[in-house]
């Protein structure tokens, strides 16, 4: 199978799968009418997606060009939009990570959603397709479509299948992210127009001639759309509500760091000089660092376990943004690793929290407890995943953190110092939560079931990933190194881009302060 076909399949298959699930799936437990169990169908869809991703990953060879695999087809020639996909090493790793997280999360949350399963999994498949589209798009209109495809079914996932306060949380999520996307659309059209109105391809748009001020406004529009979803303080307040109410797979899909990927892939390379402009860059860095501390402090005082994980996510994203906007290769590598590993760790956390909450009927921390004696597998998994979230060395959470610190120290020593304080706070809130759930005896004396077979397989996969990526990630890091250099230089994978004829963006000269 050629790489191009694989790329297209990666984006298209989940959509086809969504239709299959909607049509063939049997809803609910009691409905014994014809149809296949929607969960099995969904597992098939996600499983095949994962296989496709792995096949793609092993079949690419490092060539002279930075794109490891590309696919191109005509789409809307009148305005210059093409169905153009491409994977560089960073996108490839993100694709593989997301494609693997989905089926294993499904296994772990097998019994979570009971009503209208076909529609639920159809929405999730659509979201998966949008994910892949965002990771692999090389055409800005295609990217935008994929971005919206990511957002809209998620609204339904959160709103329809969520908890009691779900509709309001879903609405908040939708309004806030759509506002950002609309602003981004304005910027997309402006850039397209500035580039001559003939193409939506990233490279063509990156060569557009714009005044400095226009470039800054466009970058601001793009960044606003992405930072709302990241989330960055103070645009974060939708996330805890949405993740709290969403079913587990919805919550972890919200937590995949798609938006920071989009910043690195779309926003920064399109406007390389504007990305360095103060006060925008400094403000983002300051807000990111504030978010690290803010998210951590709020996580410390949260009584709800799911919201605690959400605030922890906000805290971690702050570090990703700090490392990204330092524009050093080391920092960019750290940011990429954080994005990849947080996708794994945060998903595992949400799954574990979901398992515990489902059995106890509540996410209130003080009502939980005493899992260790009755569920040793769950307890062990919890401890390992918590250690990864804390950033214990030898887990995957550490490598991204360390490189982010090393990378941003040279450019932003004081903010990095503040970010390091977040390390302490992370230990406080995560350890307290883990201790409360796993060790402390609770008043609830109902028996607690340990992980069943599906959940054990899923958590085993996550734990394996955590340990393996913590110890043996050198090959992956080697693969990502060129992508890191490109991010730091604000380049597209195709090569250096001229911006306003100022000459190639040189490595290292603009990163210094």
């Amino acid at each position: 199978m050629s790489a191009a076909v694989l790329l297209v399949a990666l984006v298209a298959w989940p959509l086809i799968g969504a239709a299959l699930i909607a049509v063939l799936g049997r809803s609910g437990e009691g409905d014994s009418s014809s149809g296949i169990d929607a969960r099995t169908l969904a597992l098939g869809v996600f499983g095949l997606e994962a296989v496709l991703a792995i096949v793609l990953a092993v079949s690419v060879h490092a060539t002279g060009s930075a794109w490891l695999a590309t696919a191109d087809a005509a789409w809307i020639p009148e305005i210059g939009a093409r169905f153009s996909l491409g994977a560089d090493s960073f996108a490839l790793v993100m694709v593989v990570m997301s494609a693997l997280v989905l089926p294993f999360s499904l296994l772990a949350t097998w019994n979570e959603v009971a009503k209208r399963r076909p529609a639920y999994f159809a929405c999730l498949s659509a979201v998966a397709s949008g994910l892949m589209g965002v990771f692999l798009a090389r055409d800005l209109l295609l990217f935008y479509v994929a971005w919206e495809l990511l957002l809209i079914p998620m609204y339904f996932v959160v709103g329809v299948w969520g908890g009691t306060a779900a509709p309001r949380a879903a609405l908040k999520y939708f309004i806030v992210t759509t506002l950002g996307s609309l602003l981004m659309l304005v910027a997309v059209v402006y850039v397209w127009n500035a580039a001559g109105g003939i193409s939506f391809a990233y490279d063509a748009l990156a060569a557009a001639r714009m005044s400095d001020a226009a470039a800054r406004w466009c970058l601001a529009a793009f960044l606003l759309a992405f930072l709302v979803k990241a989330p960055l303080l103070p645009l974060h307040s939708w996330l805890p509500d949405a993740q709290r109410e969403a079913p587990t797979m919805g919550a972890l899909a919200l937590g995949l760091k798609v938006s920071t990927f989009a910043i690195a892939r779309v926003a920064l390379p399109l406007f390389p000089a504007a990305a360095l402009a103060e006060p925008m860059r400094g403000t983002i860095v300051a807000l990111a660092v504030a978010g690290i501390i803010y998210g951590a402090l709020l996580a410390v005082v949260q009584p709800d376990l799911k919201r605690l994980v959400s605030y922890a996510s906000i805290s971690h994203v702050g570090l990703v943004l700090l490392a990204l906007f330092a524009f050093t290769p080391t920092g960019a590598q750290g940011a990429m690793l954080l994005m990849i590993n947080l996708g794994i760790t945060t998903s595992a956390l949400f799954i574990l929290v979901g398992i515990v909450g489902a059995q106890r009927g509540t996410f209130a921390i003080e009502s939980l407890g005493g899992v260790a004696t009755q569920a040793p597998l769950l307890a062990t998994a919890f401890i390992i995943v918590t250690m990864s979230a804390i950033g214990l060395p030898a887990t995957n959470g550490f490598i991204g953190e360390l490189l982010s610190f090393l990378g941003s120290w040279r450019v932003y020593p004081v903010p990095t110092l503040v970010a390091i304080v977040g390390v302490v706070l992370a230990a406080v809130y995560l350890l307290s939560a883990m201790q409360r759930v796993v060790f402390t005896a609770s008043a609830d004396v109902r028996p607690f079931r340990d992980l069943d077979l599906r959940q054990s397989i899923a958590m085993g996969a996550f734990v394996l990933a955590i340990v393996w990526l913590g110890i043996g990630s050198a090959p992956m890091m080697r693969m990502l190194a060129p992508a890191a250099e490109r991010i730091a230089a604000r380049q597209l994978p195709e090569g250096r881009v001229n911006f306003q004829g100022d000459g190639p963006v040189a490595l290292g000269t603009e990163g210094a302060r």
Partner: protein
Amino acid sequence: MIADSTTTVQQNALLAALIGLPALGAVANGALAVQTARTRTHAPDAPAPVGLASMLGVGSIAAAFIVAVLLFVQLTSGAGAVTAHFGDWLVFPTEAGRTPLIAWDFTFDRLSSVLALVITGVGTLIHVFSVGYMNDDPGFARYFAYLNLFVAFMLVLVLGASYPVLFIGWEGVGLCSYLLIGFWFGESANADAGRKAFVVNRIGDMGLIAAMCILFTQTGHLDFAGAHAGLSGMSTGLITAIGLALLLGCAGKSAQVPLYLWLPDAMAGPTPVSALIHAATMVTAGVYLVVRASPIFAASPTASLAVALIGAITALFAASIALRQWDIKKVLAYSTVSQLGYMFMGVGVGAYTAGVFHLVTHAFFKALLFLGAGAVIHAMHAAYHHAHEHGDAQDLRNMGGLRAAMPATGALMWIATLAIVGIPPLAGFFSKDEILVSVFARAMGSPLASASLMGLSGQVVLFVVLGFGTITALLTAIYMTRLALLAFEGPGRSSTSVQQGVHDAHGTLLWPLVALGILTVAGGWLNLPALIPIGPVGVLEHWLEPIVGETTRRLAPIAALPHEQELWITGGAVINAIFGIGIALWLWRRWAPVDAHHATPGTGFGGLLERAYDVDAAVQRGLVGPVLAFAKRVLWGTVDRGVDGALTGGGGGLARAAQWVSAQVQVGDASRYVWVVALGVLGTLAALAWRS
């Protein structure tokens, strides 16, 4: 760091075995523990797999010890350090276009050999002791899993050839410490103590991470060899910053002021854990790091002075608290903090060998003290159980006269007490003496004395350190003798039936004590001073010469100390110690006539010491409480709600305002509509007029 061309498969295998055997033991015991727990979900009284777990647990560490000895012998035969390269770990690009790499490199050099032998040797003894101590604990397999994992991580710490690899071990032992302190997690106070240890350690880790950042930014290396080679190009101010950041990290791990608060609480864990982790190994990691990073500290006299001063303050502070503690383990805990302060004093003044020497001797006699205390606690527990009574088995006020019932334990504890007090020719005397002499020699003239710390001249600081050290020695003599007297001598203070139920340690509880006792007596021979040539002089010093020789010389005294002065110091120390013992002997009967049930909390200064200067309460009130309240009320209550309200309410409000504006046009009032028409006509006319 590119793999050394002399790395051989055999070296890889030996080092892999050294770290891997305890790790395998941990995994095996962990599997056993999970299996036992799952069996217990339907058969709650299933016994713990004591036999298998102890074989795996003790066996893996004993095997690791043998490997360590093999490697050590290889070193003594003149071969260079054994290095192993197990592949790459972190690969990442930097500005200069290079792609540095931090690899899985481990080095068994002379310094790590000393520590590895202590870790695996004393570790084996403590594992053997644990077999007896934890015999009827249902979590037996889980205990050995954690303990083995700890040894594995500790070995990673001392064998790592770069700061990040060391950091793996550093954090790993922190994790195991958390799990072991909170081992009996049914009692939430235990798990809380574990969490406190982890969090306070993490505060120190901030310093270590910051140090790594500065080092990497300046030298582009994080492996010891590369980073230390790059120091020559750096300004002293930057090197001092690195040193101080490292000091923060070491202070957290080694429980120095102000990050010592976790160690006394850590006594909530099983006593062998306290012996291994909080006396012999983990807490010494900070001292090891200072020695390993000695090029940094030797290049910055200011940072070294800071290390020494912190050590001295800690030593005195902790010793004062130990004077009035009633829990036998708490006394030993504060004693450990105090002795760690001594080690910091030693390495702070650049006497790296002296610091390591005290580390080793302290491991011997402190492990002996803790294990002996464990034997006592074990015996008291059993006695209370048999007598069907309740009482705190750890409270000194419930003990007394135990030497009659526990002659072996009592004798060994007395030996350890005399060692820590510094009575020749026991181990503690030589190591303590060497530190004090080193401080004095440097105070009389050295690069340290000429430097300054926060405005104070180095000489002043060094004399303060010396003074604190001397007073601490006196206090150590007093409180340790007090402990031994209260526990073992005089009339028993618990009921007769309890006293009769006390039995001496035997079997696995006794033999490790004996072994440690021998080491305590003989340990001094590791590094005899030239002044007292009763055997080979300075064995350890010569052993560590290739590693710390040059850095020691950088901070060495300008002129060697004349023998008479050295004699005065040494003699003075002995007299100091004997004086302390004397005070204890004189006062001890007035100290605890009542048993713990009827005791009242102390008042005045004594009460303050009992409560450890109320530092915990102050931190809770002044720092933890306000921060949590701030987070809860301000950040969550006001800011977050406010931001959320602004986003949603603001967004909604905007929409509603727009709706109001446009709704004005649709009120259904005909005359309103006419107005609109009229205005529209006027507007159109105006536009047309303007156009033309």
